[in-house]
C-alpha cells in the first residue's frame, strides 16, 4: 500500500504498524517522537497496535533544542 511519510509517498507492507514504520524509517530517539497521522496526534502507547492504512499521511515530530546554552537554573 502507499502512504505518505513526511511529505514523500512510499510503498510499504500492508498491515504495517506505527512502531514498524518508526523502525523502517530509522527514527532517531523513537521513544520521544510525536507521530501525527492525517493531522491528528496519536498516543505513543498505541504505536505498536496502530495499523497504518492506504493513503495515511504520517509525520514525525522531533524534540529539538538548540539556540543559547542552558538558559535555565
Amino acid at each position, binding site marked *: 500500500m502507499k502512504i505518505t511519510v513526511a511529505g514523500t509517498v512510499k510503498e510499504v507492507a500492508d498491515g504495517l504498524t506505527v512502531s514498524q514504520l518508526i523502525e523502517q524509517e530509522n527514527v532517531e530517539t523513537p521513544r520521544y517522537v510525536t507521530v501525527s497521522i492525517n*493531522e491528528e496526534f496519536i498516543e505513543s502507547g498505541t504505536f505498536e497496535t496502530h495499523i497504518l492504512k492506504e493513503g495515511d499521511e504520517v509525520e514525525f515530530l522531533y*524534540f529539538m*533544542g538548540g539556540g543559547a546554552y542552558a538558559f*535555565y537554573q
Partner: protein
Amino acid sequence: MPFTNEQLERYSRHIILKEIGAKGQKKLLNAKVLIIGAGGLGAPAALYLAAAGVGTIGIADADVVDLSNLQRQVIHSTNDIGKRKVESAAETMRAINPDVTVNTYYQFVNSDNILDLIKDYDFILDGTDNFPAKFLINDACVMAKKPLSHAGIIRFKGQLMTILPGEGPCYRCIFKNPPPKDAVPTCKQAGVIGAMGGVIGSLQAMEAVKYITGVGELLSGYLLTYDALKMEFHKIKLPPRGNGCAVCSDHPTITTLIDYEQAVCDLH
C-alpha cells in the same frame, strides 16, 4: 511623531514595500520584542530586529561569550569573549541602529521571573537550548497570552512554530512533557552547523515582523522543519489548539508554571 530624514532613508526599503509602508514601519518602531537566549538563534534574530527598527528589544541570557560560541552566534565578536552575552548583543544592536532601545536581562528564566519578564513585550522569541526552558516559556506565554516564536536547531536540521495563545496550538500540544535528561541530544553533544541558527533565527525574526505589522500569514498551526542536507523545507500541519492539551485547552490541568530539572552542565 513624524519620521526624521535619517529614518526615512534608513527604512526606505521597508517603507517602499506596499505591505509595510510608513504605517508598518511606525508599528515596528513602537513594538517591543523579547528575545530569550542570545545564542545561535537569538543572535541573528536580534541583528535583524534591530536593523528593522523594532523600537524596544529585550534580550535575556545568563551566559558570557565563549570562543566556541563564535562559530554561529554572529552578534558577538572575538573581542567580546568573556563579556556578558546580553551586553555584547546590546552593543552590537545599538551600533546597528540607534533608534532601538535595548533592555538587557542578565539572568536565567524560571517560574518566579518569567511572567514579569514577558509582561511588557508584544512578541516573545524563544532562542533557548534546553527543554525545561522551552516548556516554561511556552506555558508562560500561553498563560499570559503572549505570541511566541518557538524554535530548535541541531546538526543540519532546524524547526520553528509560531504560537498564538487562544488561537493556534502550542508547543505542549505536540510534546506533552520534556524528555528525560540526555534522552535527546543537545547541540553541545551533537553539533550544529553555524548557518542553521542564521536560517531559523532569521525566520523567527520574520515572524516577529509579520506579527507586528499584521502582514501575511503567521506560522501558527504548523511546524516548519528544515533539513539542510536534503535542502528541504517541510511544513507539518498540526491538529487544532487545545485537543486535550494540559496548558492551552479550555480546561487546562497545568495552571501554574513548572520548573523542570535539567543539569545545566550537560548543556554547556
